């Protein structure tokens, strides 16, 4: 469900390290999940997506893992760079509710040079 009233948790990593950002979702009927990156003052940008019939998907420097048993998503960023500093949101599409995109809480990633 939505956690829009909570302050964002933060994750601080050293440049070059790997980052892992976690997200819990609530709707077991969700079929499709997306990770977004949002830089200050801008709209969210698509990073990577995954369907519920998969447990892992890889992109360029990013990997998304899905554990449907515990309703958990994670985003792994390899060799984190200063340009990766942003807020990261997971989102689920609720097809049983007209295909609405519902965002999770979000995590602020800060990369130290």
């Amino acid at each position, binding site marked *: 469900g939505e956690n*829009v009233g*909570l302050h964002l948790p933060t994750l601080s990593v050293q440049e070059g390290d790997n980052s892992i950002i976690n997200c819990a979702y609530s709707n077991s009927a969700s079929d499709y999940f997306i990770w977004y990156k949002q830089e200050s003052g*801008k709209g969210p940008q698509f990073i990577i997506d995954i369907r519920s019939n998969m447990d892992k998907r890889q992109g360029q420097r990013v990997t998304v893992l899905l554990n449907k048993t515990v309703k958990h998503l994670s985003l792994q960023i390899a060799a984190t760079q200063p340009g990766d500093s942003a807020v990261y949101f997971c989102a689920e599409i609720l097809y049983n509710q*007209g295909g*609405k*995109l519902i965002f999770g809480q979000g995590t602020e990633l800060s990369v130290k040079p």
Partner: protein
Amino acid sequence: SQTIHQWPATLVQPVGSPLSLECTVEGTSNPNLYWYRQAAGRGLQLLFYSVGIGQISSEVPQNLSASRPQDRQFILSSKKLLLSDSGFYLCAWSAGSAGYGYTFGSGTRLTVV
């Protein structure tokens, strides 16, 4: 290619004044359209979504309303703004049939004073 336009980028309005934010999509037909609001340091909250002309679904009770007078135009309005209406407003669209591939506009920063 599809593009989404949202304006204005920033807006400062006095309490009690009306509001009209506009969002238009180009390069597609019959998109699903969405309005989200994001308070500072918070997640994105779905306000309204529309699956067709004149079809508006409201997600949360509030001081705002939405309209879709044309297939690719989505308008967010208020008759009298409240201080609590301040925030970052984002319009988004997705393919009408499947809901995949949400794309966000650049957002409007609204400050009610």
